[in-house]
Structure formats: C-alpha cells, structure tokens
C-alpha cells in the first residue's frame, strides 16, 4: 500500500460517511428516521436493495468462486426476478396499504401479536449474528493479506457505520448506499478493464473466453437434476425463488429499503430495477473472476493465495513437501504456456482437451497443498483457512493493480461491507423499536421513539462489532450463521404466505405450526448433517415453507374455531 492508496481509501470512505451524515441530519419523527420520510425515488430504492444484498464477501468471494468453479454460480440468482414480481404484486401493495414500518407488523394485523413477536425475534437472532459476520468476513481476509490488526479493522468498519446509521437512520443508509454503489461499480469496471489489458496482446476477449472454456469455466448452465450439485438451473429457479422471496419479502433489512419509497409505484419500479440488473451484475462479477483465471494462465500463480496459510506451512516440517509441489506447479505452468500458444494460433480441439487436463492436474496440486497447510495448522495448533477462494481476487488486486487503484478497490470492498451492515443495523433497530419496544411499553412521544431507535441502532452496532471480534475465536461461527439463516427463513416465509394466500388460516394455527416446523426443520438439518438424508441447505427454505403451510392448514381444518386475536 502506497501513500496514494491510503489517501484514496480513507478519502473515499470518509467522504461517503460525512456526506451521508450531513445530508440526513435532523430526523424529527419516526417516519423520517425509520422510513426516510417516504421520499426515496425508484433508483435510490433499486441501488439500496442491491447494495444491501452485495456485501464485501460478494466482491471478494464471487470472483474466486468463478476462478475455481467457473460461471455456474450465476444460476443461484435465476429465481430472483420471479421473486421480485411476486413481491411487487403481493407483498408491497399490502405493506403499503397497511402503512407498516416493519414486515412483522403485517403479521399482527393478519394473525395476532404472538405470531408477530415470534417472527420478529427469529429475525433479530439471525440478522443480529449475520451483521457481525458481515463485518468480520472481509476484515479477516484484509487483515491476512495486508497485515492489518483484525480487531482494529472490525472496530473501524463498525464505528464508521454506526456514526451515520445512528445519526440519520434510513435516509443516511439510502444516501450513502447510492454513493457506495457508484464506488463499487466504478472500481469493478476499472479492475475488469485492467485485467483484460494485462493479458498478452494477441489474446482478444474471445480468445480469453476460449481459454477459460477449455478448462470448463464457461459452463454457465447446468440442467442436470443432481441433488448434490448445489448450483443448477432448477435449484436456482425453485430453491432460489423461495430464498429470494424470504429475503426480499420478509427480511426487514430489505423490506425497510423499499418501504422508504415515495409511492407504491416508486417501490415497485425500484424492485424491478433490481430484477433487471441483478443477474447481469452477478454475471459480470463472475466474469471478472474468470478473467483472473485466464490472467494466471499467462502469469505464475501462487500455490495458495492465502499468504497466512503459506507462511504457516513454510515454517512447518512440511515446507519441503510444499516446495516440491510448487516446483511441480512451475513445470506445469511452462507446459501450459506452450500449449496455449498453439491453442491461440490454431483452434485444434485436442489442445483444448490437453489444457483442461493440465488445469485439472494443477487443481490436484493445489488440493495437495491445501492438505499440507491443514496438517501444518493442526500440528502448530493454529486455525488456518486452507481454502483460498476468497483470497484470489484480493491477491490479484494487491499484486497487479497500479497505485491509487489498489486504494480504490479496497474502498470498494469496505464500502460493500459498510452498505450491508448499515441496512442490517437500521433494520434491527426498527424491528426492536416497532415490534418489541413500542408494542410492550406505554404510549411514547415521537421524539422519545426516535431517541429509542437511535439507542437501539447503537446497541445493535455494538453487538455486531462484538460478534465480529469474537468470530475468530468460535470454531465455525460463519457456518453457524448460514445454518441459522437457512433454518429460519423458510418458516418465516411460510408464515407470510399463509397470511397472504390462506385466508381461512388463523393466528393460533399459524403460531403452533411455526413452532412445530422450527423443530422439524432443525431435525431435518441434523439428519442431513449425520448423512441419514441428503438435503442441501438451500432446499431447507422450500421445505420449511411447505411444512409450515401444510401444518397450519391441517390444524385449522381439524379445529376450525382456532382463532385468536391480540
């Protein structure tokens, strides 16, 4: 990192924070603070929704995903446009008509207080933990590659977000997210152009795609019905639709973004904007990763992109074995160079097959290296991430981008972390204020409610920083957060769908069904963990949703008088 990079990085982040805080100061009432005064236009909503979903990990991990496994991950988003249409037709008109502040408020209106409280608490547990991980996940990667202090980085990201989110609420989140998205798009486009420029002169974009295709990186679509294959057209369309419906329709961190819209129409257009651009955006980010893969066909790549992992193995008794693998990789690289030259000059199909084989061998070497790293880590009693997927893109940035642009790309990553975290804190505070605090205390004035919302935002910010700081100590916290998310999401979506489409089902049946479903979904999760059944986590959303609807309908049918309103 050069001085210019520091100036660009700190300058960009501070400008956004200061501008956001200044622009959104002085919220006088709850509507201003939690719904941004209902002044957002469709492009603000669209960008805000995209910025909330795209966390730092999206920009660190997705190119690495394409580097390793190709473009197939884009299928995960195929259900998103369908979900957007359902949300625009069903969810948004209802939320708008009822003038709700949170998605869970609708549940009290439709069922009863206990169902609202249950859904709000499930959200708070899951999102509260996730907010910590949104900060921690990029911080651990940046601290590993740049040698920055992990705790300090967690605190800096958290405090910057707290400053503007506490001060300006939803308006501050929306204003900053617009600028953060501009920084993110600019940075990613510049990175893409630079990668293309760094390829040899005779390698055109089409040739680059052919080289990537020869190693199977351009297999975008997979129509197989293999349950073990996580990303297929079908899992994206079916599992993805349910996941996106839960996320955009019932997760307050997203619902709050469009509830700030000026009118019903603005909210709907904002969501359609997301439905139109999300798939191409993910395709583009994956393409950046594929081009990094092509770049490393012409340039020496490290055996493992995580410098911390390499250091551990190099100071262990496995250093010699590791260096041997590295030498083999260098020989393989030279062989690949000769082959690519002939592949570019004549389109002989046999050369493509040979290249695929060499890249397969390269993957095997990388896998052997990972095993050595794990052994070295176990021996030295150090927790080490041997899977270097998340480190590929940042390694490329730090070693190949000119000064100034490294700072900009780091600003992209930190902006993404901040934009997601701010939405999460904003939503956690709204849910705590409106669904728990307001509902369980005596009548409060507008000023008191705004003050309470600010305190709750601050408190959730501190909790998020706390979770981020202890995340490194807990063995599998990131995994745990993902599991909690997939376990709760389907159930909550099911509760909402019952509210929208199953008019005969009443509160008690839904509440009981939700509790039973939660136990069943946790049971299914453990059956999958112990390999008694085969049910990848993405399908838990669909299964949870289906079970809660079935049980609630059955309970209501068996006991038609089961209805209670708070």
């Amino acid at each position: 990192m050069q001085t210019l990079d520091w100036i660009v990085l700190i300058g960009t982040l501070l400008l956004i924070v200061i501008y956001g805080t200044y622009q959104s100061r002085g919220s006088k009432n709850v509507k201003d603070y939690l719904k941004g005064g209902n002044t957002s236009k469709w492009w603000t909503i669209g960008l805000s929704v995209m910025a909330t979903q795209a966390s730092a990990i999206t920009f660190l991990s997705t190119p690495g995903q394409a580097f390793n496994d190709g473009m197939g991950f884009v299928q995960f988003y195929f259900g998103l446009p369908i979900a957007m249409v359902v949300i625009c037709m069903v969810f948004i008109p209802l939320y708008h008509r009822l003038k709700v502040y949170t998605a869970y408020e609708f549940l009290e209106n439709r069922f009863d207080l206990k169902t609202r409280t249950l859904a709000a608490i499930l959200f708070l547990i899951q999102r509260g933990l996730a907010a910590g991980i949104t900060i921690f996940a990029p911080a651990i990667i940046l601290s590993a590659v740049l040698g920055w202090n992990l705790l300090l980085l967690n605190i800096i990201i958290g405090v910057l977000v707290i400053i503007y989110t506490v001060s300006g609420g939803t308006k501050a989140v929306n204003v900053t997210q617009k600028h953060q998205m501009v920084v993110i798009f600019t940075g990613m486009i510049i990175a893409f152009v630079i990668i293309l420029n760094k390829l040899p002169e005779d390698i055109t974009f089409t040739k680059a795609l052919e080289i990537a295709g020869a190693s199977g990186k351009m297999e975008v679509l997979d129509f197989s019905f293999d349950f073990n294959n996580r990303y297929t057209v079908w899992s994206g369309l079916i599992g993805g639709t349910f996941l996106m419906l839960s996320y955009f329709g019932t997760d307050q961190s997203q619902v709050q973004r469009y509830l700030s819209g000026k009118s019903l129409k603005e909210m709907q257009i904002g969501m359609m904007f997301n439905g139109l651009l999300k798939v191409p955006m993910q395709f583009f980010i994956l393409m950046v990763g594929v081009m990094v893969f092509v770049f490393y066909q012409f340039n020496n790549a490290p055996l493992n992109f995580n410098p911390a992992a390499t250091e551990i193995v190099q100071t262990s008794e496995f250093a010699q074995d590791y260096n041997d693998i590295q030498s083999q990789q260098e020989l393989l690289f030279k062989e690949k160079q000769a082959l690519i030259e002939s592949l570019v000059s004549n389109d002989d199909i046999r050369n493509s097959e040979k290249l695929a084989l060499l890249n397969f061998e390269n993957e095997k070497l990388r896998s052997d290296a990972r095993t050595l790293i794990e052994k070295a880590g176990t021996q030295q009693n150090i927790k080490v991430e041997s899977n270097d997927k998340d480190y590929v893109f940042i390694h490329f940035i730090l070693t190949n981008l000119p000064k100034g642009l490294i700072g900009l790309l780091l600003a992209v990553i930190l902006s993404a972390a901040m934009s997601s975290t701010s939405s999460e804190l904003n939503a956690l505070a709204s849910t705590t204020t409106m669904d728990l605090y307001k509902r369980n205390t005596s009548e409060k004035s507008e000023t008191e409610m705004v003050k309470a919302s600010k305190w709750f935002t601050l408190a959730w910010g501190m909790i998020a920083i706390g979770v981020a700081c202890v995340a490194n100590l807990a063995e599998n916290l990131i995994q745990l957060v993902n599991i909690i998310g997939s376990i709760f999401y389907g159930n909550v979506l099911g509760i909402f769908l019952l509210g929208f489409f199953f008019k005969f089902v009443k509160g008690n049946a839904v509440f009981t069904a939700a509790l039973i479903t939660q136990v069943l979904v946790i049971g299914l999760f453990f059956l999958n963990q112990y390999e008694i059944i085969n049910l990848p986590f993405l399908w838990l959303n669909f299964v949870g949703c289906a079970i809660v609807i079935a049980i609630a309908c059955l309970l209501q049918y068996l006991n038609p008088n089961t209805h209670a309103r708070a």
Partner: protein
Amino acid sequence: MKKYQWNKMYTLVLAANVIYIIVFYFITKAF
C-alpha cells in the same frame, strides 16, 4: 379493482431474464 395487478414492466423484466438465460445457453455451447 383487481386484487393482484399485472404490470407491463413485470413482463419486461421476466422476458429480459429469459433472454439472459438464452444468451448463457449459447455461451455454454460456444465455449
């Protein structure tokens, strides 16, 4: 008033996404 109203922009967004998938199909085939 209809309960759930369809809108032209929904058709547009879904059609655009179908086109993306068709393009992806040809990319998969071509490379």
